């Protein structure tokens, strides 16, 4: 409490040394842009779903304020007014500067960020924290921000740092990341559905290969930074690693070791599966000090009993014969009748459970009435649901708010029941869309006469949404989506033992066309092999050629053409090597060569084209310009390009004259082993490389000998040489 003077700004909360720093900002995307929770979220946003009777948003805000965040932008899609109302009534209003930004138009996380950027609310100077699903964390994210700032000081090209937790459960959405350990640089990002969840931190010694990698599509980067991303770097920060180093520094300060250790729980609520797991983690105190009895963000007081049983202090009625086996939580004013069994579940406030009912691993929201002799297993039950006597709810079921189940109903496994009818993506509100007979029959058969609610199609049956962003998202693949559900087991999934040898341009395993699997498919799908950098798709080459042709014919500016190419490279995850050779091939192909063209004609033509377009080629070879020469060499060796072969020296000369290549780069080319045919597969090919190499070498030799001051001599010498080599 250093500041003795009257504190003027919000900074009074921070220590004195922080006063002149800009407040740390965070962006919370309140919308998930997917439909995983939809049945529960018909009349409320996902971020207000209660986890342990506290809205997810409250947990997120608590986690953020634990990270010394001062300003939070909550980006809302639908139900923005509810989020606003929640924030206005929450205590965080006093401690954080929270602003709600509503947008109906953003259809993806990328859209949301673009829109955010347009509004200019973020401080451009400072990094911000992006939270794209609700998090529960006891980790101080501001440490990560510090590390990010440090990285940026060293290398301006780091635009983003991703937080990664080591360990944790296996999750169908875990990516594989290749990271260069000394610089924490992300070299490759690969979505890896259905695989073990530990991020594979590979200490791959040959990381140089990946020097010019491009980053595969990531949910939030995509679209936002497209035109700038090339050549930028993304760092990966392993949460918890820095604590070890910080520990030494901190020991001097007056903090106990206690506050520093163990504080590395970070989880995101992404789907119903993680919802259930994280609930249990919170009850088991993994997120300590975020635990229900430690003044939960919601402000409800809970009493902790042995076995991680949390009972609200406010008028909970437990029968003497109630069996509680933790971890579990019972909200305020709930009443459990006799012979009830509650096992690893959460009950919201004002719930009523009838006699002899068993509830196992279920998450029940506020104000739910459950009758007698019910069996409820591994499901989520929305607010205000009424369940009659003798009802059996199968595992994985989701009951939306306000659903009513009649006596004796049997809810099938993984069923989704909503108060309203299911509305697909192509749903048109204008259309009077009456329930047809078949659907009604099915509904009555399953739910019975007394129930109120509509059966939704199972999640994996949902037609894949046709919006462009999600079209090829492997995580939205039905097989994978199925595993995101509450109640599914991952234990019999085995990891494929894929070695790093597949890093070569291996055959791309057929991009699995989204198969629709039958709802009854209880067998678990096999695991896709690890596939890294299989090269860009065919579409890329077609598109690239088209775009270049357009640029060439319509005479675009080099910058514009480069921009277009970059966008394409990003979109197709092609990498700049592929792009460069494509560009080079295109323009070399534009050089007209026929039987009786002379060397000077070809030289003039080459020089003309590359004086105009050389900049485009160079802008796609940021690291090593000798690659241009090598690509040229490769080009003339390709089939159908024999006519170029004998003119290779002239082509190089043309590239040199048009400043596409400099003298030093040509010398590097001459000295490199690749140009002499090293690394080719067979002798014949090597010989051909060598031949071509010998055509180019004299030029470079002469360039080297030549003094820069007598231009005349060199030109003559050049010409002589060319003739000689012919």
């Amino acid at each position, binding site marked *: 409490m250093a500041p003795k003077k009257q504190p003027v700004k919000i900074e*009074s909360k921070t220590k004195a040394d922080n006063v002149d720093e800009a407040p740390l900002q965070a962006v919370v995307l309140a919308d998930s842009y997917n439909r995983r929770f939809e049945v529960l979220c018909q009349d409320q946003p996902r971020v207000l779903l209660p986890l342990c009777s506290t809205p997810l948003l409250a947990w997120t805000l608590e986690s953020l304020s634990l990270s010394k965040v001062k300003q939070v932008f909550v980006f809302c899609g639908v139900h923005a007014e509810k989020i606003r109302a929640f924030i206005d009534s929450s205590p965080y209003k006093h401690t954080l500067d929270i602003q709600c930004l509503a947008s109906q138009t953003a259809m993806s996380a990328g859209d949301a960020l673009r829109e955010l950027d347009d509004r200019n609310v973020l401080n451009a100077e400072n990094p911000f924290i992006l939270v794209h699903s609700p998090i529960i964390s006891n980790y101080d994210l501001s440490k990560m921000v510090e590390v990010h700032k440090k990285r940026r000081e060293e290398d301006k090209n780091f635009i983003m740092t991703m937080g990664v*937790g080591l*360990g944790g459960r*296996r999750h169908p959405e875990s990516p594989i990341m290749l990271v260069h350990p000394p610089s924490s640089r992300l070299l490759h990002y690969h979505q890896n559905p259905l695989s073990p969840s530990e991020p594979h931190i590979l200490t791959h010694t040959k990381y140089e290969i990946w020097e010019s990698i491009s980053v595969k599509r990531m949910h939030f980067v995509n679209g936002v930074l497209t035109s700038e991303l090339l050549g930028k770097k993304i760092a990966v920060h392993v949460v918890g690693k820095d604590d070890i180093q910080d520990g030494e520094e901190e020991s001097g300060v007056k903090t106990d070791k*206690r*506050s520093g250790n163990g504080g*590395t729980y970070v*989880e995101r609520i992404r789907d119903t599966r993680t919802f259930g797991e994280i609930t249990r983690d919170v009850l088991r105190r*993994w997120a*300590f000090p975020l635990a229900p009895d430690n003044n939960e963000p919601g402000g409800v007081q809970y009493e902790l009993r042995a076995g991680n049983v949390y009972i609200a202090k406010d008028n909970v009625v437990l029968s003497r014969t109630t069996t509680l086996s933790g971890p579990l939580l019972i909200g305020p004013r709930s009443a459990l009748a006799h012979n009830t069994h509650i096992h690893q579940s959460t009950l919201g406030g004002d719930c009523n459970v009838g006699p002899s009912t068993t509830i196992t691993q279920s998450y029940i929201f506020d104000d739910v009435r459950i009758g007698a002799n019910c069996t409820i297993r591994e499901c989520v039950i929305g607010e205000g649901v009424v369940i009659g006597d003798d009802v059996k709810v199968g595992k994985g079921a989701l009951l939306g708010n306000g659903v009513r189940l009649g006596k004796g109903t049997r809810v099938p496994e993984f069923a989704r029941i909503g108060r309203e009818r299911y509305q697909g993506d192509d749903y048109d509100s204008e259309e009077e869309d009456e329930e047809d007979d078949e659907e009604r029959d099915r509904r009555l058969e399953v739910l019975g006469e007394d129930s109120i609610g509509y059966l939704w199609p199972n999640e994996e049956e949902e037609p894949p949404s046709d919006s462009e962003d999600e079209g090829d998202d492997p995580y939205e693949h039905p097989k994978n989506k199925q595993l995101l559900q509450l109640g599914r087991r991952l234990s019999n999934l085995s990891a494929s033992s894929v070695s790093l040898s597949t890093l070569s341009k291996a055959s791309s395993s057929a991009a699995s066309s989204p198969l629709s699997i039958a709802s009854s498919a209880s067998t678990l799908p096999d695991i896709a092999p690890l596939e890294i950098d299989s090269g860009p798709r065919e579409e890329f080459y077609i598109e690239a050629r088209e775009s270049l042709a357009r640029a060439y014919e319509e005479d675009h500016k080099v910058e514009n053409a480069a921009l277009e190419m970059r966008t394409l490279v990003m979109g197709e995850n092609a990498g700049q090597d592929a792009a460069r050779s494509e560009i080079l091939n295109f323009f070399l192909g534009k050089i007209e060569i026929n039987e009786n063209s002379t060397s000077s004609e070809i030289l003039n033509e080459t020089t003309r084209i590359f004086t105009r377009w050389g900049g485009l080629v160079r802008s796609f070879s940021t690291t090593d310009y000798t690659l241009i020469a090598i690509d040229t060499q490769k080009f003339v060796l390709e089939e159908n390009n024999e006519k170029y072969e004998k003119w290779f020296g002239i082509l190089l000369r043309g590239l040199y004259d048009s400043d596409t290549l400099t003298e030093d780069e040509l010398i590097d080319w001459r000295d490199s082993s690749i140009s002499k045919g090293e690394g080719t597969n067979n002798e014949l090919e090597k010989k051909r490389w060598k031949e071509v190499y010998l055509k180019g070498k004299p030029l470079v030799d002469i360039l080297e000998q030549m003094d820069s001051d007598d231009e005349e001599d060199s030109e003559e010498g050049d010409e002589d040489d060319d003739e000689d080599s012919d």
Partner: protein
Amino acid sequence: MAASTSLKSNDPNARLTEALCTSLRRRQIVGSLNVALATAALIQNIVRSARYSTIDELLGLIKSVGKRLIDANPKELAATNIVRRILRLIREEYRAAAAAQLISAPPSAPETPFLGPSTPGLSAPSNHYLNLSSTSNGGYNAPFEFFPSGALQRQTSLSNFVAMRHSRAQLERSGSLVDIQLSQSTNNLFTRIPETPGSVSNYNIGSAGGPGGLNRIDSEEFMKHSAKLKPVLIQAIDEVVGELETTHEDVAKGAREHIHSSEIILTMGHSKTVEAFLKQGYRDRKFTVVVAESAPSYLGHSLAQSLSSFGIPTILIPDSSIHAIIPRITKVILGAHSVLANGGLFALSGSLACALAAKTHSKPVVITTGQFKFAPAWNLYHDYAAVDFQSPANVIGLIGNGGGGGKEGTEVVDPYFDYIRPELVQLFVTNEGDHSPSYIYRLIKEAYDEEDVEL
């Protein structure tokens, strides 16, 4: 009532309070001493800058802050201890000022307190912020306030309070009221009767007029003197802070009386008090220290490091060997997180194992602690959550199988504290002398005002 006053939300002090509350709740400030210092600084800020027109209001304000602090982390009792201490100091200072007023003020004013005993029917419940024993005996109080040394009133250490209480008790004894009051007040302290108006009116039956009279001075005179009083109050709080800061040294002063040559001392965790105590003792005596590593926090490692770098022969053992090594130990010295009124205490988990082992082998257990950790609380009902359960990550680790991943079926229980019953402890070595567990309640009673027991 005064206690209902609270800070406005736009007040900078409200923000400071909120900040302290949240950092307490989020365990960003841990350890009794850190908490105590932060609390003292906060209260000092409030006294300095908050707006209040009467002393009631100030006391109510501080009480409400104290209430929020205890809500934020009920296990950090030091925060409320400090609040109680400061409340008491403010009353003392105010009373001194009022007494000074009596001397210099017109003759009508001094008479008011003396009306007290003669008008028992006039109960004034709004004044129960006032110390019962001093106000109820206005007549005897007055001479006390005229004590020749004005400095005495301003001295703030606990021992002085004890001294003051003794002298006051002697004065009271002549009035013979003391027995009833003592029994009443001890009753109140140790059964924790909530401070309902009913129980308050009990006190006031014999004495209600007194506070009323004093209050009358408040409203009229206090505003005039508040400016004068403020620096005095701030100075008093400064002294509390100073005392807190020197706690370790003060405790360590007695080290040579407690440690003999060639003893083998068992300790655990990393209590700063114990560390200072052992280091001080080693200046005069040569002994060996056995440190239990105190899993899962492994604070014992850093203590062993620190002691051995000081030159003390140190042996680090795993917690599992405590019982095996105890026959060779001559004394167990432990730190405390907080000491309760019954003489029991909360200490780092593992301490109970040490204390029980020592009990089995009849080895003395000595607790070194500052008196600011003495809390007027009892481990009533042996509250399950009172030992502050931590994240399982400390025990089974997050890396590899964290988040319950590898150990889904296992429930992990990781308490941070142990509750040690009073009968397991032989002696408390404090910054104000050595005391047996059975005497702690007395010290607590003397250190805090009864009406502050329930904030």
